[in-house]
């Protein structure tokens, strides 16, 4: 059941080499925990981007925290390509596990269901099948004969995201962003940062409960105001586009990236 901790303690429970599921920008990215992870000097993490990532993955790659990246895309969106991701691909410093969005969702669903694999429509003909030998093409065991792709279960060691609020029981409001629940179901441990802890019981009414990840799946919660910045948080704040552009420009070079990172980390510490 959910423990209320500080940011440092939250990320201290992540070990080098673990796999960590992180959500798409709009679904609530814990940039606060990202800074704390970099600060803690974590290495060798296997990122599972659900199903894509942006600034968060780029920072973790650039800072040397991530060594394996499983994703359907890494992009800064309107701010352009992800410069540290692109550089790391070129110099071979990360191991790539290229995917397609629904395959990552399917792998997590297999984790949620406790089955070794999940069938998925489409994909056949894609070179992803060449670069992902863990994905198999089988003859459908039921119904009309036909080829079907199956992907192995994804069971991350850790799921990490940022949400507007949790209650004192550890229930977390996730709204319609149900991929956050899927991540938590599939993961061994779930760490959440939130804008605030609220007094009301989020499970109290059918309406509020429908948008809640129950405490049963949440291991630790840390409060981090503005914790998704410069990424957006639904119902709370928009993307800080100027900051993303600033990052995109600076991170083109390794030196620029170091400078950005250093400022980002000291800013995060001041806030925390």
């Amino acid at each position, binding site marked *: 059941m959910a423990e209320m901790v500080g940011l440092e303690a939250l990320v201290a429970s992540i070990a080098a080499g673990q796999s960590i599921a992180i959500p798409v920008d709009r679904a609530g990215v814990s940039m606060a925990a990202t800074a704390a992870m970099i600060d803690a000097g974590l290495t060798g993490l296997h990122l599972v981007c659900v199903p894509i990532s942006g600034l968060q993955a780029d920072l973790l790659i650039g800072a040397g925290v991530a060594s394996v990246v499983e994703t359907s895309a890494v*992009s800064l969106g309107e701010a352009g390509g992800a410069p540290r991701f692109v550089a790391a691909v070129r110099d071979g410093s990360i191991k*790539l596990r290229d995917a*397609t969005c629904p395959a990552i969702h399917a792998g997590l669903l297999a984790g949620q269901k406790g089955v070794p694999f999940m069938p998925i429509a489409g994909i*056949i003909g*894609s070179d992803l099948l060449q670069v992902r030998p863990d994905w198999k093409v089988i003859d459908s065991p039921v119904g009309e004969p036909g*080829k079907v792709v199956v992907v192995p279960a994804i069971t991350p060691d850790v799921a990490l995201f940022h949400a507007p609020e949790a209650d004192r029981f550890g229930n977390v409001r996730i709204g319609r962003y149900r991929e956050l629940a899927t991540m938590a179901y599939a993961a061994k441990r779930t760490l959440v940062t939130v804008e605030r802890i609220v007094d009301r019981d989020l499970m109290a009414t059918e309406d509020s409960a429908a948008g809640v990840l129950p405490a049963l799946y949440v291991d630790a919660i840390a409060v981090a105001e503005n914790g998704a910045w410069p990424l957006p948080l639904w119902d709370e704040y928009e993307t800080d586009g100027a900051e993303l552009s600033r990052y995109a420009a600076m991170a083109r070079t390794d030196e620029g990236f170091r400078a950005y990172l250093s400022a980002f980390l000291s800013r995060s510490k001041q806030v925390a």
Partner: protein
Amino acid sequence: MTMQDDRARKELLITIIAGLLDGIRHVAVGASSPIPAAGAMLLRARNEQQGKPPISISILGSSRHNFFTNGGVELFDCAAQGRVDAFFLGGGQIDGAGNINLVGTGDYPRMDVRWPGSFGSAYLYHLIPRVILFREEHSPRVLVPKVDFVSAAAVTPEVKRRGGPHALLTNLALFDFDRERGGFRLRSVHPGYTADDVRDRTGFDYAAPEIVPPTPMPDRATVELIRGRIVDELAECYPEFARTMAAAA
């Protein structure tokens, strides 16, 4: 290009897209695709004016234009259920067989140029009946004989599929895709360009009629609809784009 010329180019593309979508019930549009969204909005407005069945437009990543309540996977499930009729894909490379590459150029994994990744293309290309390939740049580096990495394959006879490419739209021309033959056929060339321009700037081979017609320009009513209602509607999701369109007036 002047602002007015650029606006005319966009209006042409929007009008073509509305035509390509005619007859659909539900189209999904990416969060950073204002021209496809505008095309869908134009068709929706026209259908309303003509008393035709309404169409639904899902704008991915928007919370206002989001009909979904089951998280990021719902678009993909919805497509698998046959509930999404049309979608747009781009591509760093598009080849003459309709395959698209969103991963990069050179040898995988340490590619010469790396793009973001395949997103949902490998899946959606199989499942959505009318996938419109939309790429403004029309050049031999984009339109290649064979993509370096197949993010999504256009034709896969080894498996039943309802989805695949329907058309390819660029700044120069509009192509139809022939799924039987597995290749493109030039339908029309946009005003200001010739069939030879298209041939010169296309890296792959394609079929073409003996006389290639020009792409019809939007009529006055369409232009007025775009400059009025559509720009207003766009402003909600694509404020920057709507501002540029309006500024050209």
